[in-house]
């Protein structure tokens, strides 16, 4: 806790330094050359021996599908997180009725499959709505007739429940002394929350949030089951049209891997903005 700092501790504050990145020299090691050749051979055989003639025809639709997937991921993660913050907070400080409510929400949502929630919303609620004239005449009806609002709702609720638990832990884990310091210098409750508690909790939760967001990305294909045309749905269409199995699926895997890599890098950049030590 009070260990003396090494002289260069501050200069090595970043968790990920430029020295860790590969340089052009570092590729010219025997084992790396072999691996690079193997990878090149793999890519070559995939490109040469497999069928990719369908690709140009579907490229525009694939692009749209990726955009839909990203829109689903980003909107539900942000909305879900906004709900998760109060969910986590009331579980730490709230009065008991709110605490119990938040707790049971998280338990129920986390205890049931996302696919089930999605179908309950879309086939259950979605088929109930048209029976009420008030809803049919409301300005929301053009949206409620679509399928994507149900996908967004289900994914948001699910993300909120998981993140609510993460944020509960993160809020509880912020040392009480730091909040006390805020109060001691005259901060109001709101200022303590806005300036210390929330940013500190988010920073603590970032590594977990990273993982959860990657999981959320891979939960998005479920919306294809309620006719939202995301990248997974486009690939399914390719398979139905062309009777080709492996090639579209391999491409789909590649697409998800690239999206995951982007997410991980983005979160790492965020995490590195505030260096931590140890732990």
């Amino acid at each position, binding site marked *: *806790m*009070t*260990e*003396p*700092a090494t002289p260069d*501790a*501050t200069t090595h*504050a970043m968790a990920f330094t430029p020295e860790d990145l590969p340089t052009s020299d570092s590729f010219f090691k025997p084992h790396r050359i072999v691996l690079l050749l193997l990878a090149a051979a793999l890519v070559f055989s995939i490109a040469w021996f497999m069928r990719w003639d369908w690709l140009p025809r579907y490229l525009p639709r694939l692009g749209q599908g990726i955009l839909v997937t990203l829109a689903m991921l980003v909107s539900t993660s942000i909305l879900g997180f906004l709900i998760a913050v109060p969910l986590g907070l009331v579980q730490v400080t709230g009065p008991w009725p709110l605490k119990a409510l938040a707790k049971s929400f998280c338990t129920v949502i986390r205890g049931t499959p996302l696919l089930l929630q999605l179908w309950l919303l879309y086939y259950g609620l979605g088929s109930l709505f048209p029976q009420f004239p008030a809803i049919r005449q409301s300005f929301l009806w053009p949206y409620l007739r679509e399928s994507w609002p149900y996908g967004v709702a289900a994914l948001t609720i699910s993300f909120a429940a998981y993140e609510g638990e993460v944020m509960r832990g993160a809020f509880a884990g912020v*040392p009480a*002394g*730091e909040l*006390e*310091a*805020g*109060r*001691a*210098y*005259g*901060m*109001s409750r709101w*200022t303590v929350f806005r*300036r*210390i508690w929330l*940013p*500190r909790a988010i*920073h603590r939760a970032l590594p977990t949030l990273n993982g959860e967001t990657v999981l959320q990305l891979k939960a998005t294909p479920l919306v294809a089951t309620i006719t939202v045309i995301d990248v997974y749905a486009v690939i399914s269409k390719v398979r139905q049209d062309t009777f080709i199995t492996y090639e579209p699926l391999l491409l789909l895997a590649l697409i998800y891997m690239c999206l995951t890599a982007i997410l991980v890098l983005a979160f790492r950049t965020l995490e590195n903005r*505030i*260096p*931590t*030590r*140890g732990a």
Partner: protein
Amino acid sequence: MTGKNAARQENQGNCFHAFNAGSLPRRGSYFMTEPAQAIAVTDLHKRFGPLEVLKGVSLTARQGDVIAIIGGSGSGKSTFLRCINMLELPTSGSVAIHGETISMKKDGRDGLQPSDRKQVERLRTQLGMVFQSFNLWQHMTILQNVIEAPVHVLGKSKAEAIETAEALLRRVGLFEKRDAYPAFLSGGQQQRAAIARALAIQPLVMLFDEPTSALDPELVGEVLAVIGDLAAEKRTMILVTHEMKFARNVANHIVFLADGVIEEQGPPEEIFDAPKSERLKKFISSIH
């Protein structure tokens, strides 16, 4: 050193400003102009469940006073200090900062709570608290820590706050570390930064809650040097400490707390060289 002695000399007149509940204050009435009252605590009680930690403690700090509170562990020293800025809510009794009494109301059980949260928040900006475990905000750099309260509580401009903060950091010898994060500093450096952070709100009184207890022995000196420096410039301070030699050197008044009451108090020479009560005698001999 001469400045410090002069400061103590001037305060000789009101060395009996701290008193136990029930007894009358014996202030230096022969002083024509007394320094203004910075903190007045009257008959403070604090109970944690069945355990009564403070059993009626009263203390007055005048501007320029350096009061050291000593006593064994569990004597209620820290609780008393934390009651002054309402981090701990007293069960009964009253606290006045700069002549303004913090208005309290019954909390429905058997304690008190502030009836005006805004008043407490305002008065807290008069009190610069330094904690045993530093409590620096780990997600901010040292400079950000120091300007946080001036900007977001006192509403100062960022430029002005940075100017003040850099001067303070220079003073505690941490100017070069201003862009480092607290986790990368030694305990001594963190505590010096925490002192700068407390000074940044330009408080009327500095409160130190065992500022060196969490430090490795070799780091204690640098923190005490900073606090001694503040005492030398006649800054009003209340200091809970285990560093007896230091308390004797910087304080003009020593308060010995035992079992939740002020067992004995007076100028450092009297307390350390001629203790009257048995418990103080025992305490003094146990630490030598």
